[in-house]
């Protein structure tokens, strides 16, 4: 299982890096936008491109955050759960997460089909490229949860 953890970490790192790159692109686009408006450079659509990278930034990191325990959680009540119930509780939490991730993943796949011919105004980014972000990000998240489920179930059996 250590090996699988290693490959998951690799994917997570690659996704974090891509997200960080998106952040730097957003930064560059914002600066260009301020410059364009205040010096009349006439760039247009920078905002729409920046928002596109924002979508990618958000979905790229959900899987890594689940892997590293980085999602915001409220854990003071669950700390009081008796030790022997904990693996079961973990399984339950993972199942809820898996359900939510799977529904949005599937909806995004369908959205890629439904909006295959449409594009963003002004900059003509194909809309399926927007929905590809949740497909990729949540796809990885689902794998993270399936792996966790597998480990938890093994622990309960043992």
């Amino acid at each position, binding site marked *: 299982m250590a090996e699988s953890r290693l490959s998951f970490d690799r994917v997570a790192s690659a996704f974090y890096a891509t997200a960080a790159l998106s952040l730097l692109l957003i930064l560059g686009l914002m600066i260009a936008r301020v410059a*364009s*408006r*205040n010096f*009349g450079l*006439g760039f*247009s*659509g*920078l*905002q*729409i491109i920046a928002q596109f990278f924002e979508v990618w930034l958000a979905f790229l990191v959900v899987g890594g955050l689940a892997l590293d325990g980085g999602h915001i959680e409220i854990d003071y009540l669950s700390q009081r759960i008796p030790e022997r119930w904990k693996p079961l509780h973990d399984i339950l939490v993972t199942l809820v997460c898996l359900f939510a991730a799977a529904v949005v993943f599937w909806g995004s796949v*369908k*959205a890629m089909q*439904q*909006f295959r*011919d*449409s*594009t*963003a*105004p*002004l900059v003509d980014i194909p*809309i399926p490229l927007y929905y590809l972000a949740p497909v990729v990000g949540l796809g990885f998240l689902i794998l993270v949860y399936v792996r966790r489920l597998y480990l938890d179930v093994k622990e309960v059996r043992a």
Partner: protein
Amino acid sequence: MGLFGGGGTTTLRANSPAAEGSVHGDAAAWLGEYVSEETGGSIEIDAYRNSELGGQIESIENVSSGSLDMYVIPYALTGTQYQPAQVFDAPYLYDPDNPYEDIYEKTDPQDSEIAQQVIDDLVSETDIRSLGAVVQGTRRVTLNVNNEPPRNPEELSEYTMRAVPIAMYSEALKALGAQTTNIDFSEVPQALATGSIQGQENPYNIIRSSGIWENQNYILETNHMHSPLAVIMNEGVFQDLSESEQQVLYDGVREIQPRATETLESNLEGHKSFMRDNGLTIVPPEDLEMDAFRSAARSRIRSQFPDLIGTIEQLHGDGYPA
């Protein structure tokens, strides 16, 4: 729609980006009154306003996917799903002397063959059906002017204006002569106040409700666009209705058109005197070189939208001459 519609009642959920008191905000509610009455309550429309059920692009996508039943929005925005739908927003398309009636005639999904064709294509490409249109109001230019207001495209070229990030809108504004820039609508008042832009274009009601007037001293009645507001509906939901129910929806849009015209016209006088009372100068079309604006706009549309120009010419009826 769905599970809780029971008892033979279909409840359609309609969204609008606009507030109560405007045609844009109220059209769905008006339609609901008519439809509920005519169908004896078997169809009801729940009208939501102020983008309560989602933003503009999101709502259009939702109508397309069936997540939202109805939406009231200018045709140009459905152009994000299917570009040719923008033809109804072409500048200087409708009869300047009788714009509202002309809009109703040319956009009618039952009587106008050209409109029918565009809408059929919209349906087959996107699952979005248009039930017809009401009028939103005429788009005009607002500016901060130091000396004399510009009266033709050449004079307007000295101004930087905010363009709506939709091809038909921004091309029309470029054609009027202005330098254009894209900034978010929420930032317009601030950008005007600080002078990073000098103007924008919108109908009177939006100029007023958004507070844009506070930072402008001139309104040029360029009247470049009489925007039809499409009442759009998801095709699947539409096809689940009986033929007579479908007909009631079509009739309903026609039925609320006079009310839209009336609301618009009665609001218009109020908006104008409000602007004058607040120190804005209104330049009427008579004092502008309208021929120059019109011919610049039409030639630019001709060159920028070669795929659409055939449909626009047909809609115009007289070849859309520059």
